[in-house]
């Protein structure tokens, strides 16, 4: 091909090649993922404990993703570890709140543990689906536009002289940007703070076998005030040494040993 004689055709072919490679790349990647294949193979042949171990290794070495947490939860559920299964389904749902398959398996695991369903409603899915980096970009863009509008208004005369656009038109444009940007940014900020407040609860799942004991105070000698079944989702309110103060359903408060509960967001108990 003569690049000099047909430059546009050459560029178009390069573009098509790149696009094709882009779509091929992911399939070639997961096809060549021996760890994932081994974990799925163990699951398919009934080695659920082994499968769970392999999925956990992948997560530990490479990081979390909704599919990995989902697969790990499936293996835990099949192995009979309902507390761990519900924990990992909750983690998968945290990463992909709108995924119906995750919710389906989570509700099935909760049912097997004798727990009430806890599917998200549409607005909960909407609030939990917010991509905060995109949100940050939108808010930053809004604030930057306000900045531009103010600067543009201040230098409208010079801008008009440079661009031959009537100064009055320029000022009207900047004024419109300013008065639209202010409420937009306020709205975005309000939604952001409200959503952060809604999502900012520290939640955990009971992983103790069968049930965990709730104590009146965070000490080994404390009275028991009840039990919470394995797999139940609770909110962590406070921490004292190796005990966490939790709130279960129906304002059911008490202290629970940290070994009996695992956080949905790994590491979040450390912040307490």
């Amino acid at each position, binding site marked *: 091909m003569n690049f000099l004689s047909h430059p546009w055709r050459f560029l178009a072919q390069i573009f098509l090649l790149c696009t094709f490679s882009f779509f091929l790349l992911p399939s070639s990647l997961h096809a060549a993922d021996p760890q994932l294949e081994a974990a799925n193979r163990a699951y398919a042949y009934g080695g659920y404990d082994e499968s769970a171990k392999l999925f956990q290794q992948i997560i530990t070495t490479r990081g979390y993703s909704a599919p*990995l947490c989902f697969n790990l939860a499936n293996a835990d559920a099949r192995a009979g570890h309902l507390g761990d299964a519900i924990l990992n389904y909750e983690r998968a749902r945290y990463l992909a709140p709108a995924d119906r398959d995750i919710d389906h398996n989570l509700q099935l695991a909760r049912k097997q543990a004798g727990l009430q369903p806890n599917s*998200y409603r549409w607005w*909960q899915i909407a609030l939990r689906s917010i991509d905060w*980096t995109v949100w940050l970009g939108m808010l930053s863009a809004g*604030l930057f536009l306000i900045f531009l509008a103010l600067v543009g208004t201040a*230098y409208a005369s010079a801008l008009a002289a440079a661009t031959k656009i009537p100064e009055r038109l320029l000022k009207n444009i900047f004024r419109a940007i300013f008065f639209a940007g202010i409420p937009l940014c306020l709205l975005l900020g309000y939604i952001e703070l409200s959503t952060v407040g809604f999502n900012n609860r520290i939640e955990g799942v009971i992983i103790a076998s069968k049930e965990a004991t709730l104590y009146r105070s965070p000490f080994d000698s404390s009275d028991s005030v009840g039990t919470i079944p394995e797999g139940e989702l609770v909110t962590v309110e406070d921490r004292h040494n190796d005990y966490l103060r939790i709130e*279960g359903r129906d304002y059911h408060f008490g202290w629970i040993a940290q070994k009996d509960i695992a956080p949905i967001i790994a590491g979040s108990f450390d912040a307490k």
Partner: protein
Amino acid sequence: MTPPLQILRMTLRLAAVLACTTVSCLAAASVSQQISPAEINVGEQTIVTLNITNGSVNDIQLPAVDGLQVVGSQSSTNIIFSNGTLSRSMTLAFAVTASRPGTFTIPAFDIHTEEGEVLHVKAMKLLVDGNGTAPATNNAAVATTPAPMPNAAANPAFNPNGPVVQPPASAAPPPPRPGNNTADTTAATPGVPRDPDGGPAKVFILITPETTDAYVGQSVRMRIDFYIRMEVQAEQNSLPTIKGSDFLMNAFMTRGRISQLMLENQPYLCETWGTAIAAPKSGDFPLSMERDTYWVKSITGGSIFDPFGGFFNRHANLAHQPVSSNLLTMHIHALPDEGRPAHFTGAIGHFDVTGSAHPSSVAVGEPVILDFSVAGEGNFDYVRCPVLAEDPAWKQYVASSKVNYRDEGHMDGVKSFEQSIVPKKNGELPLPAASFSYFDPTAKQYVTVPIPLPVITVTGSPTPIASTAPEADNDSTSVAATTPTSEFLPNRLDAGSLRTSLIPVYRQTWFWAVQSGMLVLPLLGGLLFLMRARITPDDGSAERAQRQHSMQQEEDAMAAAVRRDDAVAFFIAARHAVQLQLGARWRLSPEALTLGEIRARDPQLAEALEPLFIQADEVIYSGQAQPGIDLAQWENRVRTELLQPQPA
């Protein structure tokens, strides 16, 4: 004694005097009574306690009863200032022994208070056993038969009356009663240890268990009284603890209830806790408590020559040493093996059990919630969820529970259980038989209580099969809406997008730092805008200033022309002034405003201005004005009518 202690002591004495003289006439007197225990062996003591509130008495004697002897008595006064009300209670305790077995009745009698009121004390019964084998219980009304069990006939396999098993006879000597624990105890003040000088001890602890005979695991209510004489009172930084490891004690409040009282004319501070103890194994065990105690040993400093030394230079020397309570022997009996229900979990006490189920109609595979409530008095740590009989039609899940205690000792309470149970087939399904077993220490028998539960209507297919995820109806309050299929959906084949941490972005510092930084941008823009506006001259304002300046010049010219009687100059200035004003209003050049232009915009105004413009044209073109023109009148008209601000 330290000055604050002196002041406190004086204040308390003053309060006691005031209370004695005033309180009782402010509120009606009342009396409560107790005989504890109500069942003793020959030679043992029981305590008859009379509590007189808001009244004072000088001398009370129990009525004489053949076979009973009063071997000692004690009185104490408690003054309480609560919710703005001062009240006083006087407690009289009589130690009574029996010389022979039988059932004795201390007859009713009246108490005449110093205030002239008559208080009625009811008759009290005392059962005295001759063989010394009856367990001592503190209940005045001893239940001899178990409470009737609800719906006992509903489950014919259940024997509500179960075997009655007596605890083994205690071969040990009668347990010491609270109040006569030491050899130094005098008849005048039973229970109070003595100092070597014969007076009541400055610091002592009395423990009063509800009974000294109990079963393994049974919670026994116990009262702990820590007494310290006011003159040696000091701040304490510890709690009473049980000596040894033979008993488990429920946790109690860090600070007990504080009261003041008089013992043998000495003011004491009394700190009281309520708790419960339980023994993990059978046998006879000593029960005693101790508290690491501080008290004032001596006061140093101060001088008789220094009138202020007593207040400012004195300080207390504290003594510090464990103080032991009275020593009791607890007789702990093993629970009988005979008649022990299969599902007995160690619950000992007196309980009422209720159960309910909701909803009453479900589909196959949907959970029914069972709510059980176990209320009463006993060792709630051993109270477990009522047991459901195995039923192939139902699948059972682990129950959750919670306890609400209604007393300080954590013996009286309500334990609630919530258990899910799922039907495996459809139809009118009775719920599995539920029952709760406990040991009644009063009746000395195991009790199994059947819990009636309703029949549940179960609809739908017994084997729900679905191959895909249900349509999302994410109302979490609806059980039926989220009925999942019976199979887990398969694994994902790709790993998805990975992230090293689940911590959300908004919990990262940089997320908020970036937004704070971006918030600075509009502020910066606003600042630039203001600075630019201040630097750049405002064309409009300059024009306005120029116009006002010109107007002022023309008005001055008009005034000067009137003074000079110069009609030409006047009309030129007047017309220009009007043009300036109208030009500003219509944003036109003043010179461009002819009479025709004004008429096109405002005909009415043009008609008013026409004479002025005609005169101006005439004088300008002719160079002179008509004779007889009154310039002062023209000036007045121009100023008042034509140069006034016009509505826009």
